[in-house]
């Protein structure tokens, strides 16, 4: 069964400089609190893995925590660019980062292969695109039909971190709403941390909920409001105004750094 720890203790134990770390959550349930704790603890040289880097990785890249980024869509959904992500790639600020980019289908299948402990996944994809020359994908022949299919390597992050609505005292986790690739990420990770809105006596059965048994998770930590400015269905709302405001805050290096110092590095539990 998962151990229940405080957030800073959990992050200190599970994440080390140089690790590959996947903080997942597809628009919904993005583990901002855990990511911010990583920054406060000064983790460096990370390989950051995430389908949609979103504001969280924009912040982590801008603070210089990333050595490498593995992703499939680096935008501010519905708003525009991720300015820190762009500045790192276009101008090497605060330093250069290495990229490995895929399509969503490729990334989702890489997680599924990792969760299955298979070396790779197959899909129909990448064919004819320039991604082929710039990422790790191979083409194989189906042994049954001869069809040419794309093969993508399994993702096995050192640490997978996701956020959910609830856990019980045994560390069994329940999440509902858009499930993204959270279950796959947890099962693919060599170590795993699930932050939750609340720890309850007993998980209530909910239609459509994804339940991850506590014995498949290393550590659970309470982080109420820990997915803001994204959201936890039924608990918090997506702060769309903040997603728009981020476009202004993040445009300028100085304003970005000042904001991070004030709201993340100095604060505990601040956005």
């Amino acid at each position, binding site marked *: 069964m998962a151990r229940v720890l405080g957030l800073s203790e959990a992050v200190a134990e599970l994440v080390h400089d140089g690790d590959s770390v996947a903080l997942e959550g597809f628009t919904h349930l993005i583990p901002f609190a855990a990511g911010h704790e990583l920054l406060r603890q000064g983790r460096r040289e990370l390989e950051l893995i995430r389908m*949609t880097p979103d504001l969280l990785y924009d912040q982590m890249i801008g603070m210089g925590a990333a050595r490498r980024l593995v992703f499939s869509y680096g935008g501010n959904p519905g708003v525009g660019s991720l300015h820190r992500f762009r500045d790192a790639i276009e101008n090497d600020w605060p330093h250069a980062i290495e990229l490995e980019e895929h399509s*969503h289908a490729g990334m989702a299948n890489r997680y599924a292969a990792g969760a299955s402990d298979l070396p790779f996944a197959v899909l129909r994809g990448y064919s004819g695109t320039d991604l082929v020359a710039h990422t790790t994908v191979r083409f194989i022949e189906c042994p049954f039909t001869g069809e040419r299919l794309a093969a993508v390597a399994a993702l096995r992050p050192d640490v997978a971190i996701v956020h959910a609505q609830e856990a019980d005292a045994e560390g069994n986790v329940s999440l509902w709403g858009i499930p993204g*690739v959270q279950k796959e990420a947890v099962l693919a990770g060599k170590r795993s941390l699930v932050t939750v809105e609340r720890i309850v006596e007993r998980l209530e059965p909910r239609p459509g909920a994804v339940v991850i048994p506590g014995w498949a998770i290393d550590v659970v930590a309470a982080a109420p409001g820990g997915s803001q400015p994204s*959201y936890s269905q039924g608990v918090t709302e997506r702060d769309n105004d903040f997603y728009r405001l981020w476009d202004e805050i993040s445009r300028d290096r100085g304003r970005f750094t000042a904001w991070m110092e004030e709201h993340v590095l100095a604060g505990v539990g601040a956005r």
Partner: protein
Amino acid sequence: MDEIQTVVAARTLAHARTVFIGVGRPSTAAILARMVHNPSLVLIYESGTIGAKPFHIPLSIGDGELAETADAVVSVPEMFNYWIGPGRVDVAFLGAAQVDRFANLNSTVIGDYDHPRTRLPGAGGAPEIASSCGEVIVVAPHNRRTLVERLDFVTTVGHGDGPGARERLGLRGRGPTAVITDMGVLEPHPDSLELVLAALHEGVSVEQAREATGWELAVAEDVHVTEPPSERELGALRELLAR
């Protein structure tokens, strides 16, 4: 998007059963189609929400209202492997920073990949959506920066280098059937698959459209003026935008 562009895009969904709306792309047209033309149209967002019935235009493809109103909410691997890949979705709406004459799309970089002038968000779901959905409608602004002679990066294959390309690459959907711009509608020529000017919105001339296109844009023999937005279409669109 211009009103006329949204209205024309919505009309393409009048007879579709299902439409896929990719990341960061306007879902206004799809919601409008449900309001005006096709109340049973199934909206599918790549966040995993199938049959979403949003009252408001969502900011992100993962807004809470989409999950709350959906018929089913599935994981991302399921979305791509069980729903998109097998071609269960009739129409996909995609946008792009660059579109070429064969409706191939770039949403990755402007300039060189390793030292881009502008780093764009990247592929998202687009490559597999465009290869597998029944057909693709591209929605893009009409200017020389967008409609280019040559893409800086092929993120998503439309009709490749012309006839036979999709078959050679194993892409199973029909590919792009229209590019809807703020000036008119481009459609692949039935033989060459090159985009030609099929329709113009009211008040736009052939010359203006050709001038705003980065390649020598051919004009269809039966080029026509798009039906102006009806009062019903405009009323519904404005009401939707004001919600």
